[in-house]
Each structure stands twice: as C-alpha cells, then as structure tokens.
C-alpha cells in the first residue's frame, strides 16, 4: 500500500451564508426571517470545524454542550447522532440555535475566529434541531422514578431547562405557568419572525415526552403560594423562574396617553395573542403611522421590526447613546436596518404630547452627547441644554427594560430579595434563602438572555438533584 500524503485542509474564511427572506418583503410579513441551512451547507459548515482537542468553544456555552462532538457527527451526516449529542445538554436546541448570542458565547472562543470567521455553531445547532422536528423526535433516556416531586414556577427558558434536567434524572416535575400557553418570553416576547411559535411548542412537547407535566393558567402567588405548595402540596423542592415581567416606564409626562405601549404589551398582543391576525384573532393592536421605540436592546429591535410588520410607515429606534453602545445583538441591529428601521441616536424624550382625545401626536426630545465612561464602562450620555426638538410620532413603545415579576416574591415568606425586587440566589447553586427553594433566570439576574436563563435552570437542577438525594 502506498502511503498517501494527507492533503492540507483548506478552510473557507467565511461562514456559509444563512439564506434569508428578502428584507423588503420580510419587513411586511411575520414569517421567519432566516430560512436555515440546507443539508449541503450544514455539512460544509461543520467541516470548517478544526475539532480542537481543548474545545475552547465549550467554555462559552452556559449549558456546556459538547460542541465539537455534535459538529463532528454533522460532518459525517449523522444528524440523528448530532441531535442526540446536543440534547444531552440542551433541552431547547431549536430555540437556542435561533436566539442565542453565539457571537459573545461559543463562537467568540472558536479557534477559527482568530484568523477567519468562527464556525457558525448556532446555525448548525438549528439545523440539527429542525432536522429532528421534521424527521420525528428521537426518544430520550430517562432514569427510573425516584419518587421525588419538584414544582417549577414559570415555563420560560430557565424553568423548562430545569424541568427537563430533573425529569431525565427520574424526578416527577410539575411546571406552573401563569399564561394560557407554556414558553414564557419565548411565546409572548420574542417575535414569530425570529422564533416561530410552532418551533417553541414542538420543543416543549419534547419535554412532555420526558414526563414533565405543565399546568397553564396557574398563577403561583394567587391560586396557591409557594409555602402551600411546599407544605402540603407534596413537593420536595421548588424552582422559581418567573422572569422579568414588570415593564419599566420612563416616568415622563404623557406616558399614560393612548398610543403609548410598554414593549411587553406591544409584543404580547402581537406574539402571544396574534394581534397581527386581527380580526381572525380577537385581540386588537393599534399601530400608527409613525412609531418611536424607546431603548436600544434586543427587545427594542423586536418592537421596531414588529411595528413595520403591523403596517407602520416609519419605525424609529430612539436611543440616548450612539450606535456603538447599542446593547442589542449586531445581527438584530443589521436586520432592523435592512428592513428599514430608522435610528435616532443621542436622543431621549422629555415628554409625550397628546391631543384633546388623549392620543399621542408627538414627542418632545432632548439631544445628548457622550461624556466620560460610567460604571458600565460605556460613555455616559449627557443632555445638551436647549436642544429640545419635537418628533412627529403617533405611537410610542417603551422598551427600556423590565423588573422582576413581584407576584412570587411578595407572597413567599422568608424569601430574600434585593432592593430591586430580584430574588437573591447563589450563582453557583441557585439556592435561595429558603431551604428547598431554588431560583434562576431573569427573576434573579434582571433581564438577560434566553441562554443565561437556561444555564441558571441547569445549575439549579443539579443542586436540586443533590438536595433531593441528601433528603433520603
């Protein structure tokens, strides 16, 4: 046999492009923006992976997915193997593949990224999850029943991850959801065009296959309080992942005028209640001719892009710092720009102007400049005196952040919270001040990302498992 010399692997410097809907067209429909890789593209992308032994990418993954392993399986076209590998660590791969900020996580540490574009880990993950949803769900292994029961409060990303991990370990898990469908922010917050709701529900039905029970229309703190569920409800432990559901407003005059929405309301009406299908769906929404969205995060981008799809002629992001400081993902900002969202940087409103019928007609704003860096390291916006001007708008969406939902903290005895109302939980374990009660996600950290909440759910599940074993 002749020894063949292994050819040196040449690596494409750029990611395989993600096919997506044309910006002009998509800005007026609610269909998903990105279309997903083809089989050929995903295999080509997987082959870009260097299969580093030390796998630096894994350091960037809050749920510790074995990234090189699943990518290697994709490169061999073993998609079933790849999704199985993914789901060992990630209960919601179709969601994460779409909404994780990979550029600041796994892909940030990719060795290839030093010289070229990193491997498109998120896109490969999404392909695998979609492949499974299209080809039939593979059964997952579940440990024999332990006889222990855990209550999970909230069915958002942290609660679902915690529930899945505990169910796989053989514990009986009941999830309580306040709304009429499970999914939390994945259903009410993130728009259909970024995360189709049928994808979310398909992932959730995978959890049900693990034996997780989900009770909707169940507001913990109202139909029962945490202490009742623990003492007498038959639960051995509990996880609280009730999210950041309390919208902040600017506290400027005119904010209660008709035509001013919190981003939560604007997005909930559209996503959860399907107001974009009104009158086929019963819930209405009113979007005017010219919409101003206050804030610069992902939620603000979602609201501004939603406004266009609801028929607004103009949709503006009004942000008091400059483009460099926008907290939203670059990809989201790019998508918004491509679709025609306009940006008013270094601008912040001082009051909302309304007519005799109390409807918004305009917004008075002040111009800002950037000063010295503040505690967050970003340059502080400083108002320019006398720079007031009037912006002609008829709808205002306030997207400046959310606080923790107060229903559980207010009704639970001996549950320590900080002065912002967030539940205090150990970052290493998720343990709260109350024995047997763990917490994670936005209710602990304040509004953050889906994957960080999922990481917190996973951490808490490990602690709860250890706590339950110790209880024997």
């Amino acid at each position, binding site marked *: 046999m002749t020894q063949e010399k292994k050819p040196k692997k040449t690596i494409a410097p750029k990611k395989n492009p993600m096919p997506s809907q044309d910006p002009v067209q998509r800005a007026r429909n609610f269909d998903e923006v990105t279309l997903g890789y083809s089989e050929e593209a995903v295999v080509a992308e997987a082959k870009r992976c260097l299969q580093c032994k030390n796998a630096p990418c894994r350091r960037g993954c809050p749920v510790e997915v074995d990234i090189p392993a699943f990518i290697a399986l994709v490169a061999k076209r073993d998609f079933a193997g790849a999704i199985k590998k993914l789901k060992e660590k990630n209960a919601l791969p179709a969601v994460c593949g779409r909404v994780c900020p990979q550029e600041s996580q796994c892909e940030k540490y990719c060795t290839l990224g030093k010289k070229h574009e990193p491997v498109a880990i998120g896109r490969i993950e999404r392909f695998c999850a979609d492949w499974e949803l299209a080809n039939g769900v593979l059964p997952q292994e579940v440990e024999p029943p332990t006889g222990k029961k855990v209550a999970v409060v909230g069915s958002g990303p942290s609660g679902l991850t915690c529930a899945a991990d505990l169910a796989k370990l053989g514990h009986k898990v009941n999830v309580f959801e306040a709304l009429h469908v499970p999914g939390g922010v994945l259903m009410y917050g993130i728009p259909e065009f970024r995360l189709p709701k049928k994808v979310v529900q398909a992932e959730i039905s995978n959890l049900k296959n693990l034996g997780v029970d989900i009770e909707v229309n169940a507001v913990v703190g109202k139909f029962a309080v945490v202490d009742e569920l623990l003492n007498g409800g038959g639960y051995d432990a509990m996880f609280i992942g009730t999210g950041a559901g309390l919208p902040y407003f600017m506290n400027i005059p005119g904010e209660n005028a008709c035509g001013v929405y919190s981003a939560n309301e604007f997005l909930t009406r559209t996503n*959860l209640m399907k107001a974009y299908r009104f009158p086929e769906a019963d819930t209405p929404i009113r979007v005017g001719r010219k919409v101003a969205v206050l804030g610069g995060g992902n939620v603000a981008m979602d609201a501004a892009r939603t406004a266009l799809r609801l028929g607004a002629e103009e949709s503006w992001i009004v942000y008091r710092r400059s483009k460099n400081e926008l907290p939203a993902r670059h990809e989201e900002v790019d998508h918004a720009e491509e679709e025609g969202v306009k940006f008013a940087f270094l601008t912040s409103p001082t009051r909302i102007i309304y007519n005799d019928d109390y409807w918004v007609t305009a917004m008075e704003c002040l111009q800002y400049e950037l000063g010295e860096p503040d505690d967050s390291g970003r340059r502080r916006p400083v108002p320019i005196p006398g720079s007031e001007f009037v912006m002609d708008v008829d709808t205002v969406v306030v997207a400046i952040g959310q606080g923790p939902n107060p229903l559980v903290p207010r009704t639970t005895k001996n549950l320590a919270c900080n002065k912002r109302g967030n539940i205090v939980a150990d970052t290493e374990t998720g343990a709260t001040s109350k024995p047997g009660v763990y917490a994670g996600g936005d209710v602990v950290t304040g509004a953050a990302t889906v994957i960080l909440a999922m990481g917190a759910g996973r951490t808490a599940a490990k602690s709860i498992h250890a706590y339950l074993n110790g209880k024997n």
Partner: protein
Amino acid sequence: MYRVVKKEVLAPTLNLFEIEAPLVARKAMAGQFIILRVDEEGERIPLTIADYDRGKGTITCVFQEVGKTTKELGALSEGDYLQDFVGPLGMPSHVENFGRVVCVGGGVGVAPVFPIARALKETGNEVIGIMGARTKDLLFWEEKMGSACNELHVITDDGSYMRKGFVTDVLREVIEEKKDIGLCVAIGPLPMMRAVCDLTREYGLKTVVSLNSIMVDGTGMCGCCRVSIGGETKFACVDGPEFDGHQVDFAEMARRAVIYKPLEQQALSRFVEKQEHSCVCGCGGGEK
C-alpha cells in the same frame, strides 16, 4: 377547559355564568377578578368575581354583552367549556369593621359589590346597600343583595321600578341622614363611580371603587391597565383593581377605556354578520 355549570339569563344581554374552576374557587375573595378566553382565537378578558362556592369549586361572574367576546360568551350554554380561566387575580377587598358602610352597585356592578357587602356584613358592619339600573329589566340580585345588607335601596333611572333617579340621589340622602358612615364602596359604570366619588368627596367619606381597565395578562406584565392614582401610575391588575376613588383620574380612565373602540366595533360587526349569515348555502357561515 372549564365547564359552564350554570347559565342564567338575567336580562336580554345580561348573563350569569357559574364556572367550574376549583383551584380558583379555593382562594377567591371578594374584590378579585378572573381572566378568561372563550376559544383558541379568543382575547383575554377580565371579569370581576361575583360569587364563589369553595365546596362546589365554582366561580360566578355576571357580564353584559357589549362586544364580540362577551357576545360569544353569552352564546354558550350550560355544559359548554371555556378555553381558559385563570385567577383569582388582583388584591382582595380590604374588609374590616368600619361600623356603618354603604355599598353602591350600578348596573352590572351590583354583581361584584355583592360579595364585598356580604364580607363587610360578616365582619360586623351595618351595611346599607344601594342598587340602581337604567330600567327594571336590567335589575338583578335584589334578594341576594338584600341578604347581604341590613338595609337596601333600589332605584331606576327611568322609574320603571321603585324610585326614579340615580344611585347618587339615594346616597346623598343616606349620608345626610346617617352621619357616621365609615366607608363607601361603589362599583358600576365609570360615570357612576365618578359621580359617587364627587359626592362623597364633599362629605369627606372614604370611597373605594373597582377599576375594570383593559388588560392582557392580568399579572403585572403588560402595563395596559395602568391608571393614575393620586398622580402616581398603578397597575389595576396587581395593585388593584380597587383604589381610593378620590385619587382616581377618571378622565384618563375614560379615554383609555375606548382605545380599541373602532377595532372592537369592527370585530363585532364581523361577528354579527357571520351569525346572521346562518348557513343555508353550505359555506359554513364563514369567511366573506
């Protein structure tokens, strides 16, 4: 799914539903509300709890058919199911022994006033009830209210039953006659609650009203139900629905209550047209 165990047509567009929801009934208190959805495409609407039966595990609500959703709800029969039913939401009424109290119910507002009057009476208060309606046909629960009050006055706008006039006419007389009233509770249409508050303000009589603002989730998440109370923004769903009536910005409430009026009208006309087009042509009564 939540079964309608009892339906009572109180007047042509006024219905009473008793709905099976044991988890809600277990905790329900006077002053709280529920949110329901009729079907998969339905909107979430809040209704104040009119009564509850912990033993049977049921909640009673009374509603007027005004828009598409309430008409659809009114078209259901005993044994039918609601898609969603969640509660009890909001804060319960503050109940203590004030001595002598007045409970005023206007129109459909008589229903949510009833459990509050009952709770106040059970706590040892002398309860004076005042109930009013536009006309005789729209009056309901006179007997039930009578049992929850030590004294009950009934009045109709058109004089078709008992006295002619408004609840505020009776209220003024009651206040003048009995000086030492500790609390007034008033629930009904916005103009009525506003008129009651204007009156009791003159006498310095603390007045509690229940605000039925537009809501989506009802758990503090959307802020659609925000109201100005003494110049401060509050969420009716989690901070209320009951507030000090003398602090409520009724003018703002009235304008916010009609935000979706044109769209609601559109949904209603579409619904009515569909119903009238009851199917003879085989189209399923459906899309135009």
